[in-house]
């Protein structure tokens, strides 16, 4: 067991409000949290169209559908339903294509074609900014007991860094990144101004 970054989607506010900072050393303007949100949106929110308009719209071929690794985290993961009334539910993955959208940020020109083409509003332009960002979870750069800068600088309390097991109400979306899902009711975390 290692330390995991825990993201509480229900508490997540836009970056300007939450004041999340990033200490990624290779790029001073790096927005590590934004790059995580992109991956989480593609994993949880994307409806995984069989014939994806976003992939067809991209003029640079920067978007592709990547089959989830057999037995990997994404293969095991159940899709969060964004169905009628937005009631949170889990849909067996057999009903869905498990291919996940992946953006090659070295090919992406930030033209925003995919954001306009997506019929469900999964992608928006702030999510896929042209300067690429990366999150390495500060691995190898933290003192024992120290938390990453995003966790300590986040004012809305949506981030935590702990040694936890993923259980009910949480999903390990990416390696060492756990997303806390809201209990019930409307699926609000990704709604406007969130």
């Amino acid at each position, binding site marked *: 067991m290692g330390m995991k970054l825990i993201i509480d989607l229900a508490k997540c506010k836009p970056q300007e409000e939450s004041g999340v900072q990033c200490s990624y050393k290779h790029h001073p303007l790096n927005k590590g949290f934004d790059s995580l949100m992109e991956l989480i949106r593609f994993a949880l929110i994307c409806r995984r169209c069989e014939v994806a308009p976003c992939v067809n719209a991209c003029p640079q071929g920067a978007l592709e559908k990547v089959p989830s690794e057999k037995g990997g985290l994404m293969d095991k993961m159940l899709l969060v339903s964004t169905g009628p009334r937005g009631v949170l539910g889990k849909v067996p993955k057999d009903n869905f294509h498990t291919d996940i959208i992946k953006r090659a940020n070295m090919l992406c020109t930030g033209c*925003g074609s995919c954001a306009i083409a*997506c019929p469900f509003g999964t992608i928006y332009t702030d999510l896929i900014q042209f300067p690429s960002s990366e999150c390495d979870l500060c691995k190898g750069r933290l003192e024992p007991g120290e938390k990453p800068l995003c966790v300590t600088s986040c004012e809305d309390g949506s981030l935590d860094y702990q040694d936890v097991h993923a259980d009910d109400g949480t999903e390990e979306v990416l390696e060492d990144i756990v997303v806390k899902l809201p209990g019930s009711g409307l699926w609000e975390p990704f709604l406007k101004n969130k």
Partner: protein
Amino acid sequence: MRLPSEVPEKYRGKPEFDLETCVGCGACVNVCPTPGCLSMEDDFEATPPVRRITHRYDACISCGNCEANCTTETGISLSNELDPAVLNREDTIETHEYELQFCEKCGELIGTKKHLIWLYEKLGALAYTNPSLLIAKSNELHKESQEVGQQPSGRDVQTSDFMRILCPKCKYELNIRL
């Protein structure tokens, strides 16, 4: 003008916009490595609101990034003009305007109108998954008559929002809540 030698076909000279095919997406501005060469500004005060893409070729280093990464492939290309010298530096500045499209529910900027229409044409049958593209194209076809699109509703989500041009966040909210 007498040139010192014949210009090779692939010579990277002064970049020229093809205003027929350029949609004003801003990809060239993003990939341009030279500060001040290509820049983009959205003017919300103008009527109608426009995006201005400004190119000043005195700063251009003829790298060809804009041509290689152009969304429509032919929107900007490096011409064979190899002697772009001018007497007045201001003459090297050219500005192009593109009409902006806003979300008909919240008023958020979506992109340029030409970009939506270009996507409609590029996606073919897939465009029918996305009413925003259909309405944008329809508005273009019926420019003279009344616009099919509606003014920002500002109210809570309603079924009629499906037939509006929407920004991604409104589209998402509509799909979740209705």
